[in-house]
């Protein structure tokens, strides 16, 4: 139950209510919206999928964008595995549920537990998260048709604003802040000039520029 009472959990729930509302607004079927939350369980991937779908990007381009963005899950899973000692296939199954919020909460809740209790606790936690997030998606989707116009618009706006602020809060280093700023600044420019691959260009150019500045600063410090 600790997962439900956490601020992170509440923000995630609200984000998925917003995601459901956004899906309704864009015209994604309710079943597909709920299915994406159940199966993907990573909001950035889902946003890229829905956002790409909304702007009419080719499926292959969206897949590439999702692939590039989901690479951030790899270090998250790696750092959590020491707390999830089990056979290979069990670990493989457990890894499916790891995304940003599950990672944050597991880092907080798993270490104090005795090691044999961690895996059952983890599976309980992620089941709760998955059920809550699917419920939130359906709730947001259904709400969006019932609310007065101004509130429905507020619901659609919930995903962008909460995600932007969460992205800012989760930033650790200069690279994170710079790539966030570059992404925001470059997206409208590339959307205007680079056609259907704009998202990939935004990521690659913004990320590379942020990384280069980080490298240069590191070298300067080393001298």
């Amino acid at each position, binding site marked *: 139950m600790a997962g439900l009472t956490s*601020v992170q959990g509440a*923000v995630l729930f609200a984000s998925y209510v917003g995601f459901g509302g*956004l899906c309704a*607004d*864009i015209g994604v079927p309710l*079943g597909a919206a709920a*299915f994406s939350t159940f*199966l*993907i369980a990573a909001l*950035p*991937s889902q946003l*890229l*999928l829905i956002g790409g779908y909304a*702007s009419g990007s080719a499926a292959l381009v*969206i*897949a590439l*964008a*999702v692939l590039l963005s*989901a690479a*951030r*899950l*790899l*270090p*998250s*899973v*790696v750092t959590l*595995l020491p707390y999830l000692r089990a056979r*290979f296939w069990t670990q*493989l199954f457990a890894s499916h549920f790891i995304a940003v919020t599950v990672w944050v909460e597991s880092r907080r809740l798993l270490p104090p537990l005795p090691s044999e209790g961690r895996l059952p606790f983890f599976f309980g936690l992620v089941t709760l998260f998955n059920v809550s997030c699917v419920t939130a998606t359906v709730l947001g989707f259904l709400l969006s048709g019932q609310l007065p*116009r*101004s509130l429905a*618009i507020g619901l*659609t706006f*919930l995903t*962008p*604003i909460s*995600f*932007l*602020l*969460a992205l*800012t*809060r989760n*930033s650790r*280093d200069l*690279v994170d802040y710079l*790539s*966030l700023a*570059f*992404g*925001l600044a470059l*997206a*409208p420019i*590339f*959307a205007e000039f680079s056609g259907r691959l704009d*998202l990939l260009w935004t*990521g690659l150019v*913004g*990320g*590379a520029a942020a*990384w280069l500045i980080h490298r240069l600063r590191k070298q300067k410090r080393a001298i």
Partner: protein
Amino acid sequence: MNALINSGFWPYLLVIFVGFLPTDIWRWLAVIFARRLDEDSELMIFVRGVATAMVAGVIIRLVLFPTGDLVSIPLTIRIGAVAGGFFVYFLARRSTLIGVIAGEAIMIAGAYFNPA
């Protein structure tokens, strides 16, 4: 192919092949290569940068070039709600909740006073 795109299954296939597989492959690779990876290696930092810029890009695109209800809201209000949310977030010593509430308040007020 067209028959498939027009069928009700298309969004579900997109979820599986365009959302689920490209996401989960990283989770599986992490389990397979866990021992050989360093979270703070330069490659990982680069990947983090690309991922962050791309997600920031897709979000701001939803605000600047919306497709649904948000279209009826003037651009200045959409940008104002984002900027206001950020401003209050920092003002409230990095409280995501208060920042979101501030941004939402601007957006909902903007929608209320700008009927479609």
